[in-house]
């Protein structure tokens, strides 16, 4: 969607709900913010003077903040003109180190999954808000919320791993082998060399996380969670074609 689309006001002003994904320092006191918005997709914008203590909205533009933001179209980057907080998820997230590391991976994944700026990504936006809200509320273990997010985010991108039917021939059944390159579980006939053979409970946990069966997921043991996390991370990074920088820092019990 180009900048010339008629959805912007007379002075190029537009307003949207957004999640702050990342901040970069710019010059003396400015920042470049990357946000995932509800209607305009991923936007990179300049927030002027926000690093000064006198800034009126610097505190609202922290990572993981859910905001109502007004921007105006700039020549290369848009400029933030007003910000209101909808929910400050960061407050609870930064006081829980495991939650902070998981939320960082969520932010990086959301940023990487949207290639083009201004390409609407409503499902990913809602998923990201939901995951950060869940971490902030301490509903489940942060690494479990992260794995559920990664599986569902891949599903929105069209890379949902096959967990029931064989990823190659489509034959139904509880297959034991998992091949990242093939796209998930594979039957004995299609199994390529080098496929992993995870515990059946690991694949059940992945399926539970994908479909929101939290009672099953919460009751899972650490060994199974770690194996599932490894497969999910490998599957995601295979499709992204580049590793996630924040993933090695995820704090697990």
């Amino acid at each position, binding site marked *: 969607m180009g900048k010339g689309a008629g959805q912007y006001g007379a002075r190029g002003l537009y307003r949207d709900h957004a999640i702050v994904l990342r901040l970069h320092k710019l010059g003396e006191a400015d920042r470049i913010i990357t946000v995932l918005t509800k209607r305009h997709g991923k936007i990179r914008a300049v927030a002027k003077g926000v690093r000064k203590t006198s800034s009126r909205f610097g505190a609202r533009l922290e990572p993981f903040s859910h905001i109502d933001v007004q921007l105006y179209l700039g020549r290369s980057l848009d400029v933030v003109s007003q910000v209101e907080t909808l929910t400050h998820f960061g407050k609870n*997230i930064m006081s829980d180190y495991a939650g902070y590391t998981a939320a960082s991976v969520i932010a990086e994944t959301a940023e990487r999954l949207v290639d083009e700026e201004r390409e609407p990504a409503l499902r990913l936006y809602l998923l990201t808000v939901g995951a950060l809200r869940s971490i902030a509320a301490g509903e489940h273990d942060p690494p479990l919320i992260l794995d559920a997010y990664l599986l569902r985010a891949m599903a929105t991108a069209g890379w949902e791993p096959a967990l029931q039917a064989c990823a190659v021939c489509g034959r139904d059944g509880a297959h034991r082998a998992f091949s990242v390159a093939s796209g998930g579980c594979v039957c004995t006939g299609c199994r390529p060399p080098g496929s992993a053979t995870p515990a059946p409970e690991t694949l059940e946990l992945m399926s539970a996380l994908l479909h929101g069966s939290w009672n099953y997921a919460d009751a899972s043991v650490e060994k199974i969670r770690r194996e599932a996390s490894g497969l999910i991370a490998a599957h995601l990074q295979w499709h992204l074609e580049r590793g996630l*920088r924040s993933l090695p820092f995820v704090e697990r019990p």
Partner: protein
Amino acid sequence: MYEGAVQDLIDELGLLPGIGPKSAQRIAFHVLGADSADVTRLAQTLQRVKEQVRFCRICFNVASEELCRVCRDARRNESVICVVEEPKDVIAIEKTREFRGKYHVLGGAINPLDGVGPDNLRIRELMQRLAEGTVTELIIATDPNTEGEATATYLALLVKPMGLTVSRLASGLPVGGDLEFADEVTLGRAFEGRRTLDV
């Protein structure tokens, strides 16, 4: 494009933080028009800062000797350590004249998005200092942003078993400001950290 040395200088200046191509050009022509003695002094100062300035062996603040000025000062309280992100934070706190303890410069804050984890900071060195047993209080003065707060949480968890007093700098309303203009995050923090008035 200018020729030879002038363009080289503009390119080098353009690599500095906050200097764009226009500013680099302005500074380059200022240097070109300046006295030879002034330019030589600038060049020597730049060379000297790289050759002579190093990091303090104990706290990792910038120093011209093996130990920084604060670590050399025997009058400073050794039982309190203030943890900061960067050497410039030491200067900011020293200006307040409120703190008489020692410092520890981490070299940044934990930021997984930029690939900075606990092992990339001087946390191991801090733990070694605390293990010596002279320190009784740790003041965590990392920046009041998401990365700084998460680093403070991580340090507090790490230090908790040692039984030290761990405190965090208060955050709230800036002196001289109007309450109505404060954002809700800062105002909320000011309420959380309110204190009893002793009159």
